């Protein structure tokens, strides 16, 4: 799949943003006033910025409001509805915290739940796709949720919570890759099932249907850069998990903490790039490419 920067940004930052908001909603830390203002700015900034970034991916954003209508069937619609609900709920909570110094606990808990639900529905947009076997698995929501919570914990300064989460995230990330690598084959879709020609014999593409480009090839048969994927995986997981873990173990210092967050973000961005770039859509079978 094409690793569109807007989608990578959207998913990484909104995930972390909602993670942070969730922590804040649950009162970790229970900040008020200016500090709250700063932290909510980051939380909303990430979450809303990410959501806005995602609209760059839209061909026809003027209809964006309609995306709220199909919450009964569409994970994307659910994400839209939940994200707005989460943001509204957390806005109420934030206003209380910043301006009145009060924490509407129930609102915070519900807000936090909505934040997590938003991230979950984001992940389900991908996880539901049978056409992308690598994504079509529980590890996808698991990883998205872990990353959101871990990122949130880091941003919220919940070091003791973040430490085990970093390890867990790294482990789930590794597991995701490990399981993901064989999932396309397990799904059983081949050029033979795609064309139905398997009943005759081994099938290969002789000529593509068009020598010019098209949306499908750009969007779903993205093969550039996969050859670097092993190296990128090492970089991604290292920056995402052990490096911030080590930095957090160092004597507490804002610089180290900031570096830990930065390292984690870079690692997650790399991981998310791989999430797309390595994901093979079954339509590639028609082009004898994956």
């Amino acid at each position, binding site marked *: 799949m094409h690793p569109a920067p807007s989608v990578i940004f959207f998913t990484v930052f909104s995930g972390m943003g909602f993670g942070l908001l969730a922590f804040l909603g649950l009162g970790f830390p229970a900040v008020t006033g200016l500090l709250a203002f700063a932290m909510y700015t980051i939380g909303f900034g990430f979450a809303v910025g990410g959501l806005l970034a995602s609209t760059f991916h839209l061909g026809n954003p003027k209809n964006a409001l309609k995306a709220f209508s199909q919450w009964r069937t*569409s994970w994307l619609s659910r994400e839209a509805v939940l994200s707005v609900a989460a943001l509204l709920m957390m806005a109420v909570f934030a206003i209380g915290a910043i301006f009145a110094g009060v924490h509407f606990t129930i609102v915070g808990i519900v807000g936090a739940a909505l934040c997590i639900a938003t991230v979950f529905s984001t992940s389900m947009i991908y996880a539901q796709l*049978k056409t992308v076997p690598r994504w079509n698995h529980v590890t996808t929501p698991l990883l998205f949720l872990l990353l959101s919570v871990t990122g949130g914990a880091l941003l919220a300064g919940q070091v003791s919570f973040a430490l085990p989460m970093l390890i867990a995230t790294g482990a789930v990330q590794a597991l995701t890759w490990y399981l993901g690598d064989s999932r396309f084959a397990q799904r059983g879709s081949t050029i033979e099932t795609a064309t139905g*020609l398997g009943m005759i014999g081994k099938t290969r593409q002789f000529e593509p249907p068009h020598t010019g480009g*098209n949306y499908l090839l750009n*969007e779903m048969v993205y093969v550039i850069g996969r050859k670097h994927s092993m190296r990128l995986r090492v970089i991604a997981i290292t920056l995402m998990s052990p490096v911030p873990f080590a930095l957090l173990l160092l004597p507490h210092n804002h610089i180290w903490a900031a570096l830990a967050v930065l390292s984690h973000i870079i690692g997650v961005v790399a991981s998310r790039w791989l999430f797309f770039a390595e994901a093979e859509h079954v339509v590639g079978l028609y082009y004898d490419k994956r």
Partner: protein
Amino acid sequence: MTELPTSTDRKLGLVIDLDTCVGCHACVVSCKGWNTENYGAPLSDQDAYGAAPQGTFLNRVHTYEVQPPEGAAQTVHFPKSCLHCDDAPCVTVCPTGASYKRSEDGIVLVNENDCIGCGLCAWACPYGARELDQAAGVMKKCTLCVDRIYNENLPEEDRVPACVRTCPAGARHFGDFADPESNVSQLSRERGGMDLMPELGTNPVNKYLPPRPKQTEEIDILAPFLTPVAEEPKGFLKWLDKALGGD
């Protein structure tokens, strides 16, 4: 809207005969022509005369080579457009309701007025049947020529999809799969109409007729036909005498 109808009154779709398709791309271009001028936004082309031309097409013809266990490899031309799946994943993922499956005839359509161009439906389609138009920013897909098949401004015989009407080899058939006696149902039954990627559970309406086996008969059956009457000209002329009832 993005809920799928539990059943549709009719199941309109195509049968594509892989044993007859010569790979001429006529269906590709007539589809482009019709759908550029008709339903929804025109099918646009980017860098049309440039280094990397690319445009929106609703129907594309692939070509494969298949190696049977014995004999020469076979070439198969393979047209592909939306299969109007019964369990269309492209519909259920759509956040806006723009994608829907018509309850009256099962045609899967995009309502361009609602589409946000998020591309998710194209991701959900296993068959590459949807292309996001780069100029209009909306999702385009085969409409089964919904604006032809019921069109009262067209003579009745022309109320078929543009690709079917144009196919010179007659490799494309249009009809109602809900009617077991329709041309498409019969063809599919007789020729073993198949689903593409059945493992994904989309239940396509369109069926593909597999290439007929390309066997060559055994020589023995035909050997008597070539029993020599003569090995050399003289003998041949003698035979000729006899054959002509010569005196």
